[in-house]
């Protein structure tokens, strides 16, 4: 998909999250999109592009905006994973880990489910 992306910036212009990504509303949409494409191709993205990728909440407004009919939302997803170091690179976006997540949801399960439900459903 990255090969087919022309970095036209239509996805950036359609994105409802740009107002929450510092620097993105003032930036050239083509350069912001180009950073996302570069990341998917193994390159580096600018700080502004990383800010846009980090603000992605999977609204999917980018997909109908893409003139190449690419699944930009999925590209953003992969770019986000890559920017967080999923393939072993140094992360460009801070990774928020929650070591207590599993124990926390199991605690809530003990609050809301019977012993039998936990035994059968978990």
């Amino acid at each position: 998909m990255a090969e087919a992306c022309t970095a036209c910036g239509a996805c950036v212009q359609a994105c409802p999250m740009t107002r929450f990504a510092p620097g993105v509303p003032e930036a050239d949409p083509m350069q912001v999109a180009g950073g996302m494409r570069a990341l998917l191709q193994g390159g580096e993205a600018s700080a502004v592009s990383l800010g846009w990728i980090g603000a992605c909440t999977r609204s999917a407004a980018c997909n109908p905006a893409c003139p190449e009919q690419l699944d930009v939302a999925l590209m953003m997803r992969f770019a986000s994973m890559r920017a967080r170091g999923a393939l072993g690179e140094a992360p460009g976006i801070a990774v928020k880990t929650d070591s207590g997540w599993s124990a926390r949801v199991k605690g809530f399960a003990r609050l809301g489910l019977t012993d039998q439900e936990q035994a059968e459903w978990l």
Partner: protein
Amino acid sequence: MAVTHHPLPAERAVFWYGCNLLRHGDVLRLTARFLEAVGVDAAPRGGPSHCCGSPTEHNARITEGMGRRTVAAFNATGREKVITWCPSCHMNMADLMVPETPAQFEAAHVTEVLWQRRAALQKLLVRPVQARVLLHRHAGFQPRVAVNDLVSNLLHLIPGLELVAEDEALPGHMCSALAGVPGALAAAHEANLAAMARHGADTLCTIFHSCHREAVALERGRAIRVMNWVHLLASAAGWEFRDEYKHLRNAEDPRAALDEAALGRIGADVFTQLMEPELRRKPVV
């Protein structure tokens, strides 16, 4: 449970409720009961042992391993369908999991299944629910599963319930995504509150668990109520439930609001260190 005539044949499925719906045991149980009542033998499965890999996306190797384990577990059940609840799980199944580990089942979202079996569902919804409802809608999952339309349709089956004209959907696929972006969750809540005031709505209806988790605190100091769509269906069916998460989240002192038996089941350390900080978190608006 009463035997109901089902126009569609019974089917065997897994109800994959995800991980974080465990915060809302009432919603999980009610959804499973509705599935059973409309003719689906749906075995609930979820929690960290059936994870889609979302919490570990900063490590592709672990994400892939978790997805492979979960698909293999569903394949081993021999059930022909996996019914999803969580939009992250649903999309991960299609985008990341099944491309790596071929599935021997089809996936469908719970709203699709209930709407498909609405003839049986509607027979259960006999009690009027007097509510003027704004549906809390996100844009992100709608292109995959038309969940905003499906929940709206399901709510229209409830006698007495009035769904107000709806504004543009919120960004994101659910509120947990917005919570990670400074300012975004507050903006979404403010948009919902403004829409409720504009339309005279008294009830905000959440679709997904993380939205419910984030929205219940909006009740504090406001003459509104926040309910999940499953709660509204259950009210119409006359099924009793208690939204324990909302009760604790909106309690002055969540620890004091928790009975000793529940604290004993959870474990004092787990409650104090892992659950209480979330329940005491200051609302964003």
